[in-house]
């Protein structure tokens, strides 16, 4: 049975997993939905109580019934590179591809429904609370007065995008940033604003969860670091990522989070405070992992490959020879 990987060609992080799958002899079909109707094709026929779906990509053919798993990594917009792309064609292509894949018995990393929900940061914070993970005091508001009141109670704040996206017109980055004490919150009225109590951290934690396996890395905050440099993604640091153990409370919380979110993969960001408490910041359901593996040697790619390569669902043969997933 085959592993289907949906990602763009330049995704060298996905390559780290493909290498492992090749080594173990597991068949792989990798395609970018952006290439639909160009170098990627699909066909699915619904007959008398049966369905046969197939995909073609790069000279390879795979039956949807023969998929053991689907890894949604960094797929492009469906049919974006078609000869005559359009929003309508994208919708048609997305409905056809993902709609047929949803009928496959394959396991997903991650299922599109779970992935979509898991991107909502407010939902993440609530789920983390429910799972017993410590969450810094947070306010999301368009009301300047609410922001001022929150700042009065929590004088040391950071601000970050609610969605995690960066504006593109023109291209800008919006790092998590410290809010100065004299900040004027009037502009909160012009867009939802996420304010959060700043954790005086002694380290950043990136915990990559693959199935039930937790692989954690820790980057210590350098002595004398500028407290205004909040966002580890944008701060220069001489400290490398190093492998880290996972406290029992955090491990239990992360596993509960994955169950609650229906995720097979999640990249969790925590801030470790002076007491050693891991404060939940966010969980990216398709977060990058290559940089952690490169720095730490943690076997993340191998663990993902092993999860994807696990046998697919047991199948019972129907009288017409087609397979049906056994619940």
């Amino acid at each position, binding site marked *: 049975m085959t592993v289907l990987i949906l990602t763009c060609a330049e995704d060298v992080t996905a390559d780290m997993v493909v290498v492992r799958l090749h080594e173990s002899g597991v068949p792989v079909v990798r395609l970018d939905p952006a290439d639909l109707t160009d170098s990627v094709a699909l066909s699915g026929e619904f007959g008398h109580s049966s369905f046969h779906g197939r995909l073609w990509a790069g000279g390879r053919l795979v039956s949807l019934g023969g998929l053991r798993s689907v890894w949604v990594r960094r797929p492009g917009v469906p049919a974006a590179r078609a000869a005559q792309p359009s929003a309508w064609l994208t919708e048609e292509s997305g409905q056809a591809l993902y709609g047929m894949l949803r009928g496959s018995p394959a396991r997903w990393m991650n299922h599109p429904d779970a992935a979509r929900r898991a991107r909502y940061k407010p939902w993440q914070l609530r789920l983390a609370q429910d799972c017993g993970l410590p969450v810094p005091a947070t306010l999301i508001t368009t009301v300047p007065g609410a922001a001022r009141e929150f700042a009065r109670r929590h004088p040391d704040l950071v601000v970050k995008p609610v969605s995690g996206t960066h504006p593109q017109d023109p291209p800008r980055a*919006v790092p998590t940033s410290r809010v100065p004490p004299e900040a004027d919150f009037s*502009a*909160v009225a012009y867009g939802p604003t996420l304010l959060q109590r700043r954790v005086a951290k002694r380290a950043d934690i990136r915990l990559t969860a693959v199935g039930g396996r937790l692989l954690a890395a820790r980057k210590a905050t350098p002595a004398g670091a500028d407290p205004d440099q909040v966002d580890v993604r944008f701060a220069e640091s001489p400290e490398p990522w190093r492998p880290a153990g996972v406290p029992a409370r955090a491990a239990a919380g992360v596993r509960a989070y994955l169950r609650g979110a229906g995720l097979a993969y999640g990249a969790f960001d925590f801030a470790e405070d002076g007491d050693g408490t891991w404060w939940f910041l966010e969980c*990216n359901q398709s977060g990058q992992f290559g940089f952690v593996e490169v720095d730490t040697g943690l076997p993340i790619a191998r663990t993902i490959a092993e999860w994807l390569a696990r046998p697919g669902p047991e199948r019972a043969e129907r009288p017409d020879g087609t397979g049906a997933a056994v619940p």
Partner: protein
Amino acid sequence: MQPFALDYARPAGETEIAAPYVYDAGLQLNVLLDGRVAARDHALLRELGTTTSTAGSKTHFDD
């Protein structure tokens, strides 16, 4: 009329660097000019930053 969070925005930084590898549809992997698999060269990946938590932020919001 700019949202509060955008007061903290900064230029997106350097333009994308042309990667020294190309996708090989046969292997389903990116390969370097000398034919080696790019993903096996961790020193290169570290240098290019193509696997970092800000890579891909332009098109995907999963860092």
